[in-house]
């Protein structure tokens, strides 16, 4: 099998594994918004096919929703749903929307494999596995969101800069720009990188840089919102992210509400949420790249990996960038360290048997974490944190953005009387509608705005929302839950029922 065939096979295999394990993954708050956006954009696509001029004239109407993120990923979610669900009717809605995310996960695996293959064949295989064998990364691979797509394109831009032609680089960077604003940081990284290269390599790379000027065409082409009044929409896009709110985040027993955040926050969080062995190998990879850089012994590829990994992390070391969302915002940091980490494994165990042993020792804790915690990926913590109970004792964020509610939906379906009103707490109405649409929640179960207007309450345990539980006790006149989702004994979602209703204790 050729190197590229091996990389393709790994990419397809990982995308397939994600597709096969997506059904129980709940819808995070953001995903609910992107599903809604995809429905609006799908309506626009259908209009485009039937009345193109009308569609072009009405971009504002269909594309204003979720103006804060560019179009490409959501356009792909919409197109996938249009083809696989609306036209062919062969895939359920959520799987159809998520399908492009799996493609990005496959692409990420493909590019990580290529970066690893430049060291050795074994490193090529191990690099994507090192990234994916952790419940946090595995979980994020399932979502119709932008974190894995931009992580993939972060690596893809690196590969394109090293190996592709100018147009190929422009296209890849354009795709990154059209997926998420993280891409704004890439041109300076590539420029500094090029300047650090020796003689001829520097000239060749600097000559590639102007191709990036064409990349905004991809952004423009895939984001019809920009087709009318582009300057205003670009300004709104930038302003949203330069004035982004800070969500409360629990960290070592303190709720972080705003800057300055702890400078080592992202590194510490990586160490705590990843399986210990992954964390150790990736830390060793980072040190190896930094040591090589200090001794001026990095080749062009390793230097770029160091630059891209650092650039993915750097904004979150500034102490002012919003830090909510666990590790998802700097997944590129982990991904770009994975090829070096894989190479280190091969270096310490060059013989096949020893390599197998060291690969198993490194990856099995992550596989166990996936088997044990999936689909509740935002709750996963590694051994250094003492697992989920240890992290709860340390006072770490327990979960985020409501996807864990899937753990109690079967109970609600079984116990709620017809037309029951359920307070779903952090589950937004968009995600609620998708649960109903997917058949994961009975359609007669109604969405209640608060505990006092509800018959049942599914409270997600968040430090900053602790007032909701006494509020529910007061409204229901009971302090005893009916059921809940507890991971290794740690409360994630606690369900209360009004006394006298089915399922009430």
């Amino acid at each position, binding site marked *: 099998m050729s190197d590229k065939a091996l990389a393709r096979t790994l990419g397809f295999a990982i995308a397939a594994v994600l597709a096969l394990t997506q059904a129980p993954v709940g819808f995070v708050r953001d995903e609910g918004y992107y599903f809604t956006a995809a429905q609006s954009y799908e309506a626009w696509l259908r209009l485009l096919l039937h009345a193109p001029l009308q569609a072009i004239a009405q971009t504002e109407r269909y594309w204003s929703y979720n103006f804060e993120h560019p179009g490409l990923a959501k356009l792909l979610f919409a197109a996938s749903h249009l083809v696989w669900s609306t036209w062919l009717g062969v895939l359920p809605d959520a799987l159809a929307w998520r399908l492009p995310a799996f493609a990005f996960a496959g692409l990420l695996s493909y590019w990580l494999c290529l970066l690893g293959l430049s060291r050795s064949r074994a490193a090529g295989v191990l690099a994507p596995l090192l990234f994916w064998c952790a419940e946090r990364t595995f979980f994020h691979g399932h979502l119709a969101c932008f974190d894995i797509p931009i992580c993939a394109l972060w690596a893809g831009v690196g590969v394109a800069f090293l190996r592709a032609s100018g147009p190929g680089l422009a296209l890849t960077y354009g795709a990154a720009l059209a997926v998420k604003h993280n891409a704004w940081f890439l041109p300076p990284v590539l420029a500094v990188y090029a300047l650090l290269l020796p003689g001829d390599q520097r000239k060749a790379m600097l000559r590639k840089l102007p191709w990036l000027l064409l990349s905004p065409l991809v952004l423009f082409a895939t984001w019809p919102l920009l087709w009318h009044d582009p300057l205003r929409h670009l300004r709104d896009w930038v302003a949203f992210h330069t004035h982004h709110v800070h969500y409360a985040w629990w960290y070592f027993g303190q709720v972080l509400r705003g800057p300055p955040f702890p400078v080592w926050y992202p590194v510490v969080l990586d160490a705590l949420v990843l399986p210990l062995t992954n964390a150790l190998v990736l830390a*060793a990879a980072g040190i190896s790249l930094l040591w090589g850089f200090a001794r001026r012994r990095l080749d062009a590829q390793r230097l770029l990996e160091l630059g891209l990994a650092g650039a993915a992390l750097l904004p979150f070391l500034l102490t002012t960038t919003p830090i909510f969302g666990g590790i998802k915002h700097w997944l590129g940091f982990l991904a770009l360290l994975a090829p070096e980490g894989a190479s*280190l494994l091969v270096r310490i165990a060059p013989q096949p048997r020893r390599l197998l042993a060291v690969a198993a020792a490194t990856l099995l804790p992550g596989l166990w974490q996936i088997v044990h915690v999936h689909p509740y990926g935002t709750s996963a913590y*590694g*051994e250094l*944190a003492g697992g989920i109970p240890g992290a709860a004792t340390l006072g770490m964020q327990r979960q985020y953005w409501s996807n864990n509610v899937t753990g109690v939906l079967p109970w609600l379906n079984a116990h709620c009387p017809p037309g029951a009103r359920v307070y779903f707490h952090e589950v937004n109405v968009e995600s609620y509608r998708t649960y109903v649409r997917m058949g994961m929640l009975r359609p007669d179960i109604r969405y209640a705005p608060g505990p006092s207007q509800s018959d049942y309450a599914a409270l997600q345990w968040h430090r900053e929302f602790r007032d909701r539980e006494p509020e529910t006790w007061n409204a229901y006149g009971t302090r005893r839950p009916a059921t809940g989702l507890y991971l*290794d004994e740690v409360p994630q979602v606690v369900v209360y029922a009004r006394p006298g209703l089915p399922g009430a204790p």
Partner: protein
Amino acid sequence: MGAWVKHGRVMRSRSAFVALIAAGAASLLFDLTLPLRLPSEADWAEAAGALRGAAQPADAVQLWPVWAERARLFVDSMPVLAEEDLEEADYPGVRRLFLLSLPRTPFYSPPDAALQARGATPAGPEQRFGALSLRAWDLHAAPADPITRAAEEHEVDYVARHCVLVPIGGRLVERAPARATLHVRAGVVGERAYDANRPEIVVQVFADGLPVGSLEVPRTVRDGTGWRRLDVALPAGAAEREFVFAASSPDRNRPFCLQAWTSG
């Protein structure tokens, strides 16, 4: 020289190999044995049964670590408390505290020292129900009478409190038995306590018309400081008095909660 360098590299590789195998084995050992350190449903049911058999008025259960709130599914014989600072928690009206804990969980720190520091003593032997530990503690609390009688609970500083919502700018008037010491606790409910640039709230306290103290409740900056305390000796007077709590602040738009009792 070259041989030495090569030897050094081989030794480093071997050490890294052994370290990684050891880290992987230790990680798996931790992961696979973690369920053995956690209680089963039967453990919870047995502990709840033991509490049911021992329950008396003025008993309460304290969970430790505080996140072990799965207990609420099982314990039905007495209030379940999740106070975070066992040394400083008030436990008004509680005489005997059952400590229900998960001592085998990672980073578990025994609460005994905190309880002993407040003068509590064990009131019985430790009982084990699988991974659960249950022990009664006598708090040796002075007799107390509530002034505020809240059926409701509100979260202040991340703990559910039996406190009464008092509108800022308003007054709470309660007639209650008066013991030697007046205790007032107050804070802003929920995340509003952390709202930036908010002025402090002041509670003026009167007993039978006489000012007996005041409590300032500034904006909470650090977790664990939002439930403000006032403990003051009451001047001699009637055995039952009218207590008035007047809350004031230039900013009235916050849910403010107050609890008061006398003891001694």
